[in-house]
């Protein structure tokens, strides 16, 4: 089509040949196409952006909780960003078990001290979502199976986590994630 109409020899206002064989029309087509592409991209951006979390969703991205009443050995599940967060009050035996593990044994090597706050080692706070495919592992309730390492056990595909929430056995590739959190007082925690 277009090459039909590009002047082949016949002199034409829009098609003066330059030395290299390009015409003014080639330039115009390129500029027009370029502007149309930029315009389309500029229009696509708001559509994509609108699918990201809205402002009210972002505003809900912190959760505060009172954890003073949790006895040692027990755990609670909080909700943060629509996901469960496990807060476990660990016994000294559990802390010791987590601390003395040889890093070489771990699939995702991380020291227990790097997963807890200094001086607050009794509190383990992890996102309760299995790093395999997103199920919620068991182990929060006293009656739950806690897996071979006394942490959590994911019933979907059999991943075992230890008392520091680290992956020890099963298909999951990584440790249970530690969210950003802070103790606002000795018994108050703010996640996010």
């Amino acid at each position, binding site marked *: *089509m*277009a090459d*039909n*109409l590009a002047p082949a020899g*016949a002199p*034409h206002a829009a098609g003066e040949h330059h030395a290299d064989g390009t015409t003014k029309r080639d330039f115009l087509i390129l500029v*027009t196409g370029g502007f149309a592409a930029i315009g389309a991209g500029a229009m696509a951006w*708001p*559509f994509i*952006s*609108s*699918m*990201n979390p*809205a*402002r*009210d*969703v972002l505003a809900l991205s912190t959760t505060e909780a009172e954890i003073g009443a949790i006895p040692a050995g027990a755990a609670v599940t909080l909700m943060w960003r629509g996901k469960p967060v496990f807060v476990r009050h660990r016994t000294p035996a559990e802390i010791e078990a987590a601390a003395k593990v040889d890093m070489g044994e771990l699939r995702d090597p991380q020291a227990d001290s790097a997963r807890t706050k200094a001086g607050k080692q009794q509190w383990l706070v992890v996102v309760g979502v299995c790093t395999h495919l997103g199920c919620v592992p068991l182990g929060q309730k006293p009656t739950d199976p806690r897996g071979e390492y006394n942490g959590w056990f994911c019933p979907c595909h059999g991943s075992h986590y230890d008392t520091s929430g680290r992956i020890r056995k099963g298909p999951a590739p990584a440790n249970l994630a530690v969210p950003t959190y802070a103790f606002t007082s000795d018994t108050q925690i703010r996640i996010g």
Partner: protein
Amino acid sequence: MSIGLHNSEFKNPVIRWVDSRMPIFTMMQKEYGTFPTPKNFNYFWNFGALAMINLMIMIATGIFLAMHYTPHVTMAFDSVERIMRDVNYGWLFRYVHANGASMFFIVVYIHIWRGMYYGSYKAPRELLWMIGVVIFLLMMATAFMGYVLPWGQMSFWGATVITNLFSAFPYVGDSIVTLLWGGFSVDNPTLNRFFSLHFLLPFVIFGVVFLHVAALHITGSNNPLGIDVKTPQDTVPFHPYYTAKDSVGIVVYFMVFAGLVFFAPNYLGDPANYIPANPLVTPTHIVPEWYFLPYYAILRAVPDKLGGVVLMFGSILVWFILPWLDTSPVRSMRFRPIAKWALMLWGVAFVVLMYCGGKPPEGIYVVLSRLATLYYFAYFLVILPLLGRLERPLPLPESIAKPVLRGGGPLPAGAMTKPMEKA
């Protein structure tokens, strides 16, 4: 070329491979590339393409709005406010969608007017025209149901008034209205079904637009002279001539659209719709959106419930038989000295009705509405049938290539004929 494969003319091996098995590239080339199109289009012929683009904008923004909207009477209003305040670019989608509806009607009204002025409804394009009227009716239904979704006061009372139109029909009216509502008033079931249908109908429109275009590509386009294409000299290929001309129109259209969205996003809307729906209080002055005002004026011009409803629906249904009401064989109003002014006056009547529809139904506005309604129907039912016999049309040009337009001097021969021979 193997048996059973389409003999593709494309050189690119990938395109050729696909095209030989599914000649969609050949089809696009035939229908939008080399498609022979009368060479004398003016800018009124942009509006079909503009309507198509507008439909795509409405579907795109609508799908993204639907991701954030909640069709429930207790949550709909707040979910729309959330779209405006919290969702990234939600304000943009909502303003584009709301003003897009207005732009759609502006574009389609001009498109319809173009068809009336240049006689595009006449043989052999009667079916093409009728499919267009179907599209317009679907558009009206879609726009109405969309306006209900924000669940403001005008949404609620607009829905109440418009659905109550059907109660005018004898015997079955009340049952129809209950069926439309899914209850005994406009309520949550109504909102739910309107959301569902508002999502569905644009895709139905898309399908009917396909039929509209399919019919167009059989008869070919009409043109400002209203005479048939006789030789290849009368046409240019659609691309690049009309892709380029449409692009110019699209740029202007986007400028108007952007002006509305960014500088006057609520200019065409009703502030009462920013008040949450209240089934216990009717706003003192109920008006539909501007694009429905002419029909609203016709409804109110008639001092009888059923009569008003029948005339209101009739004002659009009469378009279906327009190809047979207009008995003149001359298509373009350029060559119909009397009918041209009769149509201009019809346009004035349409605008008067639009104006009166936005005013309270009292005093001079009722009188004006009645006069304009009378002329609206007289044009179709009396003037056009008679003019076909009484009017003496001006001589038609021999062909599109030999224009005899007033004031249009001879065209530079080389500029027009050279590319033609190649096409």
